[in-house]
Structures are given as C-alpha cells and as structure tokens.
C-alpha cells in the first residue's frame, strides 16, 4: 500500500454540545406546526399566510434527484422544526443572554461579549432556531445600516422585509426553498441604505446544537443605490450519529451601482470516516443584480457537511451588472458535494466570472455543476468559467457538469477546466526540501486554491487556509 492510500481523519474540532435546556416544538410538519412556530415568533398575519402558501406548495412537490449525491430517504415528519434555548423573556442586552450561550460562541472562536468582540466585524450569532446576540447594533445604526436577527427585523421593519422576502428566491422555487419558506426560524437581515458603505464586515455564525433538529434559516441582504456591504457566514454543529438537515435560503438584492460581497466558510459536521452522521446542507442562495452597474460576488469555502447541495447564483438583470462566484469545495472520507453556480444574464453587457476549485480525498465525491444562461436581450454579455479539480488518492471522484445556454450571438463565453492529482512525486519533492508530508499537502492545496482565497476578507482567508489543512489532515500518510 502506498502512503497516499492511508487515510486517517482528524476528529472534528467543533463536535461538542452545549448542555442547555431547550424548547422544541413536537417533531413533524403540518399546518398546525407552522402556526405554532409563527405564533412563537409573534409574526404578523401576512407572514403566516406566506408560510402556509409555501407549505401547501411543498406538499405537492417531490424531492429532487438530479444531484450527483446518494442518501437514504429523509423522514420529514421525524424532524423538529423549531428548537430554542429556554428563557423567560427575550434578552434586551448581552448581560441578559444565558452565559452558557456566550461561552458556546467563545469556544467556537466567535467572541460576542462586549470586551472580546472581533474588531471591525459585527456578528449575529444564531443558535439552533434563534438569534442569540447581535453585536455593534448601535454603531451600525448610526451609519443607517440595519443588521438584525430576521425575526426582529420582521417586527421592526415589516415593510422592508415584506417588500424583498421571496423576491429573489420565491417560495415555490425548489423543494428545499419551499420547505424553508414554510418553516424558517431565524437568520439575519441586513439593509444598507442609498450611498452608504457599510463601516464594518457583517457576519452571521450558525450553530446547530439540539438533537434531531433541522436548521432552516433565512438571510436577506439589501443594498440600495450605491451602497456597499461585505458579509460573512460561518457555521458548525456537534458530532451526532444521525444526519441533520440544514435547508437555508439566502437572498441578496443589489440596486443601481450597489455591491454585495458574500463570503461563506462552511464547516458543518461532515460525518465520521465511515460516513455515519453529518449535516445535509441543502441550501438555496441567489443574488439579484437588479440595478445597473451593480455587482454581487459569492466566495465560498466548503469543507464540512456529509452532503452539500448548493448553487449560489446571480441574476444579472441590470445593464453592465457583474456576477462572480469563487468556490473551494473540499471533500474527504465519505463526503459528497454537488455544488456550483448559476449565472443568468438578462441585461446588456453583463459579465460573470466563475472560478471553482474542487478537492477530493478519501472516498468522497466532488461535483461541480454550473449553469450559464445568456438571455436574448443580453447583448455583449461575457462569461469566464474555470473549473479545476484536484484528486488526492485514487478512491475519490471529481465530476464537472457545465450547462451553457446562449440565446444572443454577441455573447462571449470562455470555459477552462483541469484535473490534477497530488502525487507522491509532488509530496516527495517538498519533503526533499525539508517540509513534512502534511505541510506539503497543505501547501500544494493552498496554492491550488489561491485564486479563491485572495477574494476572502483577510482574517477569514487565514481561517480558511487553516480549515483546509485540518480537513485534509491524514488524507496523505
């Protein structure tokens, strides 16, 4: 057996649980459960109606099977759709937040207590189904930026939420988006008014804690004319033997000359070496460049989850608008990822760039699936796609499915793809220069992902590099 075939996995670092009394609704999904969730959140009638409409549509749909992933049927009636740490009343300030929750986030490296806040980053911390704390609310308010837990935004800014909710991902968009629309519990809402450059990075950290619970959060970000915002999302979950469902929806709206930069470092529990447990990450993320000269940029580093099903895309409606997708997806052991993007060119001279890096190790399967659609009116549209796959060992798989649909003859499309393998020779070369085999793999993989990492905000680029090292640790013996 060559050294490359030796696989050992480093234990998942975030696999512990917080022992906290939680309040859940009974397992299963029905109109009554939805009414119960909506009531618990004190929602207005229109939102409940929207949820019910989504639910009624969802029951008529069937789960999609086109993705290149395999898993046993999900029993939607066995999932708890709402779990919240028990508390007597809503916390008005951080002092009132249960110290156990603050501790949880500290341990995850997400400091939300007053003294230890991350400089320059406002964080919304979501624990199971509810938002625990949002930092820097006041500073942001002065700049006119609204950054709130979704449920609070519904109460405080119902008109804004109502105007944009479902405007990019309609409730009937797809199976998982419909499910989310029916049962979503919390998430983040960000609104940057006209001409404002958001003074700090906005960030949401999602933590699933409770057992047999799904997390269904919803994020909505709106950048008005000329506004700019950079947003980061991070996540983790305890190690559990059963699979847990995470079906989120993210909607972005950029008006004229606005820019939204959305970065994700996804580190859900991936399951063990044999593929037992782990999160099913079935997520719908889409941005609409509604205005002229607007720009939406997705950067994702996906290392966790047992199964990833995710295609952050852009609808390029405004003339001269720009969509970007930079992705690193790493799979090890028995993980499966089917991820990519959708770029829909509607406006004139719209441009999109896709850079996808897939790294497969162990017995994992890594699929890039991307769609570029140039509509009739999108004169002068351009797309550049680059899909690179890297294989570590010989028991994993890399797959690429690009779909291209061009309906305007002035469009320019470029597509590049490559597949490479980290070989013994490459590792030996580094070792011959004094590096350990593990440092060699980490260096080679980081070099491979460089074009994507440079798109991440500085502090997160470092985190992503480390995470990559950990995910692949032991993949080369």
């Amino acid at each position, binding site marked *: 057996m060559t050294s490359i075939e030796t696989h050992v996995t480093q234990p998942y670092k975030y696999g512990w649980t917080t022992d906290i009394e939680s309040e859940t609704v009974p397992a299963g999904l029905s109109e009554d459960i939805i009414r119960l969730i909506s009531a618990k959140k004190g929602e207005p009638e229109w939102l409940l109606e929207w949820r019910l409409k989504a639910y009624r549509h969802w029951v008529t749909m069937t789960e999609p099977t086109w993705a290149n992933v395999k898993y046993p049927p999900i029993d939607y009636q066995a999932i708890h759709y709402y779990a919240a740490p028990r508390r007597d009343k809503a916390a008005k300030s951080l002092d009132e937040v249960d110290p156990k929750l603050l501790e949880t986030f500290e341990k995850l490296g997400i400091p939300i207590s007053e003294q230890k806040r991350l400089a320059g980053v406002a964080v919304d911390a979501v624990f199971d189904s509810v938002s625990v704390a949002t930092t820097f609310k006041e500073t942001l308010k002065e700049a006119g930026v609204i950054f709130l837990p979704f449920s609070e935004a519904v109460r405080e800014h119902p008109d804004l939420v109502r105007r944009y909710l479902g405007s990019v991902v309609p409730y009937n968009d797809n199976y998982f988006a419909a499910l989310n629309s029916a049962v979503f519990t919390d998430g983040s809402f960000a609104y940057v008014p006209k001409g404002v450059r958001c003074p700090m990075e906005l960030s949401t950290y999602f933590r699933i804690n409770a057992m047999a619970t799904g997390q269904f959060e919803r994020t909505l970000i709106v950048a008005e004319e000329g506004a700019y915002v950079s947003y980061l999302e991070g996540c983790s979950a305890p190690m559990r033997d059963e699979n847990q469902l995470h079906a989120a929806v993210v909607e972005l709206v950029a008006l004229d000359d606005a820019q939204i930069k959305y970065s994700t470092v996804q580190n859900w529990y991936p399951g063990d070496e044999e593929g037992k447990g782990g999160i099913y990450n079935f997520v719908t993320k889409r941005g609409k460049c509604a205005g002229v000269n607007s720009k939406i940029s997705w950067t994702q580093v996906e290392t966790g989850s047992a199964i990833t099903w995710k295609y952050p895309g852009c609808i390029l409606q405004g003339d001269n608008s720009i969509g970007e997708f930079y992705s690193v997806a790493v799979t090890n052991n028995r993980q499966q990822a089917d991820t990519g993007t959708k770029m829909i060119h509607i406006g004139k001279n719209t441009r999109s760039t896709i850079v996808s890096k897939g790294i497969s190790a162990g017995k994992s399967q890594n699929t890039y699936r991307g769609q570029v659609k140039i509509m009739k009116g999108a004169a002068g549209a351009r797309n550049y796609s680059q899909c690179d796959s890297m294989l570590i060992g010989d028991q994993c798989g890399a797959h690429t499915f690009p779909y291209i649909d061009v309906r305007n003859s002035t469009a320019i499309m470029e597509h590049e793809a490559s597949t490479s393998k980290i070989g013994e020779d490459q590792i*030996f070369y580094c070792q*011959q220069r004094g590096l350990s085999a593990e440092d060699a793999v980490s260096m*080679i993989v980081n070099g491979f992902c460089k074009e994507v990492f440079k798109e991440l905000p500085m502090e997160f680029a470092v985190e992503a590099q480390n995470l990559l090292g950990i995910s692949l640790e032991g993949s080369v013996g």
Partner: protein
Amino acid sequence: MLQINNLHASVEGNEILRGVDLTVNAGEVHAIMGPNGSGKSTLAQILAGHPAYEVTEGSVTYEGRDLLDMDPEERARAGVFLAFQYPVEIRGITNAYFLRAAVNATRKARGLDELDTIDFLDVLDEKLKSIGWDDSFMNRPVNEGFSGGEKKRNEILQMAVLEPKLAILDETDSGLDIDALKTVAEAVNKLRRPDNATIVVTHYQRLLNYITPDFVHVLASGKIVKSGGKELALELEARGYDWVKDEAA
C-alpha cells in the same frame, strides 16, 4: 561523510541496484556515469528517500547516522539535497514562499529561529549575488510554466539557498544548452566548500568539463564496475560504455 555498502534495491519487485559500494568524503566531487537503465537515478532517489524504492540489502551511513532509517524530510534537514532530474510544479506557490518554508523547516529542526519574510529576503539576496543570478524566478510559482532549462536552474538556486552538506545532482545537464550548462556549472562550483560534497549523476562527459570531479564511477547493471579519476570520463566519452562492461564481466 557518506558510506554506501553493498546496497541492493528494487522497485515494484525488479532489482535495480545489485550491490553498490561508494564512499564520499567532505570536499569531494564524485561523478556517477553509466548507460541508460544502469540505476544512476535510482541511486540518487534512494539516497533522498523516495518511497517507491525498496532497499533489500546493504546499508547507507551519512555522518554516522543510518540514512535509510530517516524520513525524506529528516534527510533534507540534515543537509542532503537532491537536484531533481524532473522537478515538479507547484501551482500558486511562489518560489520565494516555497524556499522560505523549506529554509524555516530546516532551521526549526536545528533549533534556530524561523526567518520572517524580510530577513529571508536578505538571505536570498545575498545567495543570488554569490552565484551571480537575479531574482526573476522568485515571484513565479514553483516551476510552473518554466522551460526545461529554467527548471534545472531553479534546482541549483534552491541548492544555493539551502546550503546542503551533500548535494546530489541527478542529470542536471539533461535538456540544457551549452550556455545554460555553463551557468549552472559555474554556480555549482561557487557553492563548493571544503566541508561539503557533491555527487553528480550524468550520462555525458560534457558537464564534467565544467564541474571537475575528483572521482568518476561507472554504474552498470546496478553495480559500480569501474572507478577512476577525471580522465576516466574522457575515456568513456571516447570509447562508450561497452568496454567497461566487458572488462567487468
């Protein structure tokens, strides 16, 4: 510095080395010549610790230590350097970054402080000056898009920065035109010191016009069949390898 005794080695069950004996002392340059398939590159790879080769018999002692018992990176950190016949590419990682990681891995193993970027650039600058080269390679990714000649030059550059005690040049002359050959040879000569040693593995005599060996060995069918001074290389150039093989048989 290096003693090889009765070394036998095989790859995928085929025996390639069949009892190699060789002693290299500090300050010496040894040339290992021989026809295709004689095991020259195998010997170089085994000394560096390539995992694909299996040593079946014999021993290798390097500075009093059992070299075969050391991991490839330990050997490198102890001063064994291999200039590869086919240097590999590493996308997205600049030469400067790669070299600093290599230098620091060795420094760390020797209990020295790691160099930060600025200190490292000073060291690098000095090394480049000492061999008379510029820094045009430094910000390019390791060997990516390099011509064959550039890759070989890059190996020598790494050697200059890492200051090995025992340098093994595996067919560094192959693929080089005459000007590049001279440049590389000059750099190697400048790096010679009384306390280091060099093993030059080559097919042809021409490199030895520029790097003068103290000893020349002929490897044929996995054994050193003849050893001599630098004049042996000229004789091989003139008469080929067959007569040595016949003599040995």
